């Protein structure tokens, strides 16, 4: 049985006097124990809202969450606030994008780590401090004894992210959700953090949901990849399959528009026309249709259904035939 089973997760934001906005629109995916699953997409595709919905961190007022999120058999969305508080940090850990704003600036790092251990594992402070030191050591923070007493502003960006990972992993959760954990960091630091996460996930057997906009990060880290567009999963496959043969025009277009370090000199980029804002609602057809080089008439009339094609889920009326070059840019 899957460790995490997300079915038909939908998040609708409703503000008074405004049209309801479907940020996440029927997202389903499974995470097996120890597996790394990636959620990829550009800004506004609903990837972060998905993670917040799973963790129960969306505001009660204004955000309507429907569907089921089963963790080890229990539906997290049906739990009370108190029950959810017991699980967050113990069963599910989370690492956020900006380590400075997710750490408390007026509490030393040590206390922020022991807080989790005291709350969920009932450890006395002294014992928790020793454990916290081991945790900081494990995530590669030099001189952990001194760092325990320091405040977040005294640490560099990479060290803060390491501290955040230590907090998330303090209770050995079976599932870790990382929301753009390396976006705020420089590439050499990003490489350090990604290697660290890879090792920790392997050592502890933790399942990881990796949320990112960087297809390069996904290519090296994730077992299964979900590509999101406009709040729906448009393509889902194992990473080797997805990158070797992207079938959805969006995935295909994304890969063709990224400059690659190992590209031949003089190779042209093929951008996707328009911008993320040029969407049509899914109810009317395919949200990607206005930007899609493969769009047919049916694309703006009928919502494409999710089809299973030999281990690949695809939501498209006119998928890319493997081996075709990216479409020429249409003037905007």
């Amino acid at each position, binding site marked *: 049985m899957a460790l995490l089973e997300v079915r038909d997760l939908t998040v609708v934001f409703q503000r008074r006097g405004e049209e309801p906005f479907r940020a996440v629109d029927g997202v389903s995916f499974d995470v097996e124990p120890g597996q790394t699953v990636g959620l990829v997409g550009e800004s506004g595709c609903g990837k972060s809202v998905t993670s917040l919905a799973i963790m129960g961190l969306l505001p009660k007022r204004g955000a309507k969450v429907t569907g089921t999120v089963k963790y080890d058999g229990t539906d997290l969305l049906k739990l009370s606030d108190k029950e959810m508080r017991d699980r967050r940090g113990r069963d599910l850990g989370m690492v956020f994008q900006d380590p400075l704003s997710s750490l408390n600036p007026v509490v030393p790092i040590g206390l922020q780590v022991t807080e989790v251990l005291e709350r969920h594992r009932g450890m006395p402070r002294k014992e928790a401090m020793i454990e916290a030191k081991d945790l900081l050591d494990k995530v590669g923070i030099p001189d952990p004894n001194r760092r325990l007493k320091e405040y977040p502003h005294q640490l560099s960006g990479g060290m803060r992210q390491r501290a955040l990972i230590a907090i998330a992993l303090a209770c050995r959760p079976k599932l870790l959700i990382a929301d753009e954990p390396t976006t705020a960091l420089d590439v050499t630091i990003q490489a350090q953090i990604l290697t660290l996460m890879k090792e920790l996930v392997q050592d502890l057997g933790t399942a990881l949901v990796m949320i990112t906009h960087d297809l390069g990060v996904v290519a090296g880290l994730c077992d299964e990849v979900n590509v999101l567009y406009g709040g729906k999963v448009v393509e889902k496959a194992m990473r080797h399959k997805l990158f070797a043969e992207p079938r959805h025009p969006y995935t295909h277009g994304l*890969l063709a528009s990224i400059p690659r370090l190992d590209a031949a000199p003089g190779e042209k*980029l093929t951008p996707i026309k328009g911008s*993320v804002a040029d969407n049509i609602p899914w109810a009317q057809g395919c949200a990607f249709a206005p930007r899609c080089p493969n769009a047919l008439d049916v694309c703006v009339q009928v919502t494409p259904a999710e089809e299973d094609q030999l281990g690949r889920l695809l939501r498209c009326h006119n998928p890319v035939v493997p081996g075709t070059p990216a479409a020429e*840019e249409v*003037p905007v």
Partner: protein
Amino acid sequence: MSETLVSVQDMKVHFPIRRGVFFDRTVGHVYAVDGVDLEIKRGETYGLVGESGCGKSTLGRAMLRLNEPTAGKMIFDGQDFSALKGEDLRKMRRRIQMVFQDPLSSLDPRQSVESILIEGLRAHDLDKGKEETGKRLRELLSAVGLPSTALRKYPHEFSGGQRQRIGIARALALNPDLIVADEPVSALDVSVQAQVVNLLEELQEQFGLTYLVIAHDLAVVKHISDRVGVMYLGGLVEEATAEDLYAEPLHPYTRALLSAIPVPDPVVEDRRERILLAGDLPSPANPPSGCRFHTRCPWRQATRCDTERPVLRELKPGHKVACHYAEQIQSGEIQPHEVKPILVEEGDDITPDVPLVGPASVTEALNP
């Protein structure tokens, strides 16, 4: 084509660190740019890469004299740009334009696109009557791929990619020779980045522009540039053509940087050899002695590295590197070793030029 347009000589930008309430005392300096020489040829694209805090943006701004450099000069088209003053400087600025990173904060929200574009034309007496200017504006917009209806709109009505196009049109309006683009695509979504990168390339072909592109994304820089300079802590560590740099990185830092960039291809990612750098970027207020990279360098040697600052030297035609042991590393004579991360202090890392303890009171300061 090989005529030198820009020549930067020993450029230094040191920002003073000030402390004190009553008395503004300088207690140290941030060595943001510390002795950079570079040349940009007419019609080429020079890419400047490095991580945050390496001084690449400061260098770009100092070249335009948006920050006054502490030392060094920039020769632009045979004239000493850093010695110009007043009206001469203002006139010269027409020929060097800038495209900024964040297209929203670099466009005045209360100005329409028309007024944004016309402002520069007026300042340089290029506004020759309504009809001609109108024609010029429409030309500009079509060059950057915006409809002429955009003229009456305001920046907030556009998407990020379109705003960046407005920023480019503004730079283009004055027929510049050199455009300095500071992180022109890093604020944009991936699918839109490619549009702007292609636009910059097309415009270069069309108008014969010279670019200095400053970016942290080596993949973007490699794609767009003819020559690339890699910066680390205020200095250039390597300079080569984009192909050479990728095919044969000579400086240990460039090697690590190249190996750290994720490639969107699982087959490549699984096989790749990663050179992980230990620790963080040291503070530019207190840079390491000798080679600035020696604290994190896996190829560090016992001698010279921590005492003598390597100069940029030409190892192969067109390929310069600032490393004492570049040849030996290249030939495999020196092998990488483990590096222990060194603590980098945030904030309180100033080595004071003068004692930090100041006068306790005004009277004490006046009658020492």
